[in-house]
């Protein structure tokens, strides 16, 4: 049987690369990838991907990144495609005035820069951490270093000055508060919004009451993520015991549904990890989430030696229909796809367009969204929308 190649469609290639990883024989790229979760590569049609390269499973990958002349290519043994390495932002080499390396505070993932001000996640402290998690975005059980607002502001300034990305993405682990972590993130969000004209996304745990979601929007968050991770209830309880017992899947659905009413169309998202539950179950999750106005984001599970949870066999032929289903479901529910785009860690709905319809991913509209004017317009509209929608009852006439 002829071996299937994905090299000619950047979107499918991205999925296959994230699933299988790559081998690297070039010392420059090896050094490039050293210490990172993967290597960021720009595929054709400006498709950004973060390819696993250090995990065990990548040793058997058919893909190899090779140097060709002054550039690079990815080969699967039969054919190849030209790619380029994504330069690491230069601010990674600099430090805050307090001496903290910026790379410790901020991590660029395409259009997003992830900042985790505190590494604490109480799921670890209660031994109910998610089974796949060994510190997603550096979150662990220990107290660890908490970056001050000033340090985070310096890092954000460095990101924006270098135009490394336009969206600041705050993430936080579980803490047993009613607010889902908003109270902790509040000073950071306020400070960033006060100092810079940038968009802010927040990844947190669903708060106990919906008014915290309203407050998250009012504070300046332009996008919110409550990551469900697994739709199948039984698997959710087994793999995410903390989320299941301390929050509950029902609360996730309620919070996401409410957030979708408060935040703009396409800015409320939730991860469903591909590979931790049967594809059919992921599809059901996609339908449910997009049905309530939430963008399902489908990262691919990256197994490591001590976290072998993956449903086998898992290959691109099996999961490609899931991604196609995602695109169709999003279109059917008229969810805006322009917010979740150009992310190295996941395949975005915009990228899926070429798989489903065969059309080129990037249109003139996409170009506008990526332009400086487009970013300013997005920020302006987001700010105007907030101004119109948020009513401060303390500010009433009498």
């Amino acid at each position, binding site marked *: 049987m002829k071996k299937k190649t994905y090299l000619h469609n950047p979107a499918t290639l991205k999925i296959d690369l994230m699933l299988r990883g790559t081998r690297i024989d070039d010392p420059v790229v090896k050094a490039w990838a050293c210490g990172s979760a993967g290597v960021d590569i720009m595929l054709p049609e400006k498709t950004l991907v973060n390819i696993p390269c250090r995990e065990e499973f990548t040793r058997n990958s058919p893909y190899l990144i090779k140097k060709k002349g002054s550039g690079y290519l990815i080969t699967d043994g039969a054919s190849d495609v030209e790619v380029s390495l994504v330069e690491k932002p230069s601010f990674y080499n600099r430090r805050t005035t307090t001496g903290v390396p910026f790379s410790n505070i901020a991590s660029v993932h395409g259009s997003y820069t992830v900042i985790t001000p505190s590494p604490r996640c109480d799921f670890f402290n209660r031994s109910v951490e998610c089974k796949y998690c060994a510190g997603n975005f550096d979150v662990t059980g220990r107290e660890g270093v908490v970056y001050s607002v000033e340090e985070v502001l310096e890092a954000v300034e460095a990101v924006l000055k270098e135009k490394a990305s336009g969206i600041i993405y705050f993430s936080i682990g579980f803490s047993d508060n009613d607010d889902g972590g908003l109270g902790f993130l509040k000073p950071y969000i306020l400070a960033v919004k006060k100092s810079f004209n940038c968009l802010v996304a927040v990844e947190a745990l669903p708060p106990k009451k919906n008014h915290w979601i309203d407050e998250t929007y009012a504070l300046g968050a332009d996008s919110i993520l409550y990551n469900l991770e697994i739709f199948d209830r039984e698997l959710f309880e087994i793999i995410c015991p903390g989320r299941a017992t301390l929050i509950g899947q029902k609360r996730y659905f309620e919070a996401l549904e409410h957030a979708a009413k408060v935040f703009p169309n396409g800015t409320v998202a939730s991860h469903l990890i591909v590979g931790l539950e049967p594809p059919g179950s992921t599809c059901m999750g996609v339908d449910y989430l997009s049905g309530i106005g939430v963008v399902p984001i489908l990262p691919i599970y990256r197994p490591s030696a001590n976290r072998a949870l993956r449903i086998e066999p898992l290959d691109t032929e099996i999961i490609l229909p899931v991604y196609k289903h995602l695109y169709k479901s999003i279109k059917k529910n008229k969810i805006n796809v322009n917010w979740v785009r150009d992310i190295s860690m996941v395949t975005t709905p915009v990228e899926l367009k070429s798989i489903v319809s065969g059309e080129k991913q990037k249109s003139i509209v996409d170009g506008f969204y990526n332009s400086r004017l487009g970013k300013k317009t997005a920020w302006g509209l987001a700010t105007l929308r907030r101004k119109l*929608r*948020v009513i401060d009852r303390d500010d009433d006439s009498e």
Partner: protein
Amino acid sequence: MSIEIDTRPIWVILLLKALRPAFYLAVVLIFWGLIAMPTPEGLSIEGQRAIAIFAVCLILWVSNIVPLAITSIFAIVLVPVLGVLPKKETYALFGNEAVFFILGAFILAGAVMHSGISNRLALNIMKRFGGSPRTLLISVFLLSAFLSFFMSEHAVAAMLFPIVLEIAKGLGLKPGKSNYGKLLFFALAWGCVIGGVATFLGGARVPLAVGMLKETTGDTIGFLDYSVAVFPLVVILLAAGYLILTRFFPIDIEGVGSARAVLERRIKGLGKLSVIEYATGTVLVFTIIGWITLGEGFGLATVALTSVVVLFVFKLVKWKDIEEYVNWGIILMYGGAIVLGAALDKSGAAAWLVKSSVGNWAGSPWMAFALFSFLSILLTAAMSNAAVIAVLLPVSLGLASKLSMDPAVLTYAIAVPAGLDFMFPMGTPAIAIAASSNYINVKESAKGGFIMFITAWVVFNLVAAWWWPLIGMGYSR
């Protein structure tokens, strides 16, 4: 922060936002039209301008599109700018005794609440008399009314609300379902409303009305005279309120044992009576005696401010503690209302307005009394009671001389019903506070409140017709 997200379609929000500037533009055009139109016969140019200012303030007060105090400041600015009154005279009006009486009353009420004596008194009365569901309900009702004799009814509602809420929760009453839960919160709200009209202290509206009366006619109403005049109204309304409430919501619980436990726990938490509580209570008692005995000679404001000085001299309260109790917005609002009232009177606008409007319908004193009291109680259901006085009183005082009526009687006709809103949360904070418990809703409040609205107006007119002549008051001079 108290945040709400408007999730209506964005075009609806934009349209509604656009209405605000359109509204302002309409107000400016109305103002300009009234200023620019030919001066009607019998009205001076200053009178015409005063009416234009009055119309703008009326629209802004009723719509509440800007805070009431800001509308008042606007009036203070426009009166001298348009030459209705000289600027010196305009700003001097702000130094009216009523304004300082209100300031003194706010500070006194703040000191009483801060000392904790009002809270202690409330808890002990409820514990003492609240042995059964019926007596506990009566205790809440009468206590709310009684405390509102001496403090702003809003402050009383805010102070008793957490206690009543804890009692309701302690009794396991379900919000929105339990009749007894509804009774407790209606008793709190209606008690405050009824008690609030009993003296000058239940709200700042009576001092405002008296201030405007004095500024316009030179007449005044004494502290004790007022309370004696309205006393039967208060008693009858308390009885009627209790009957209406228990008929609408029959008591549906057997005992109140757990409520007593709540009260006992709270009383225990207060500790023993402190020196500050003793002393503040004593100052309040002497202040009330002073208002009754010295009020006419020295002025109510003088007595109030003397007590304020005593409180601070003996360090019974700190300025920082008091600041949160002083509603500067209300003080500004009242100052502006007095300026506007004086402008309408001195320019002849009030007399002209009466002649060309209500004068035709209010052909006799009792008719004028009935008409203005009805307008007042009706408007207060939708407007702030201070705004009702600011709008109606200058016009009514203009009518008094035409009908040879005692202007003080017309002041009662507006000031008393202006405090009697039983229907809607927007009319009085006491209802709004009770409704925030979720035990009662606006529909229930409107239903029961409507009967009280009619009852209050009828009883007030009957009291004026039968009781007032007995104490030497009458419609005519």
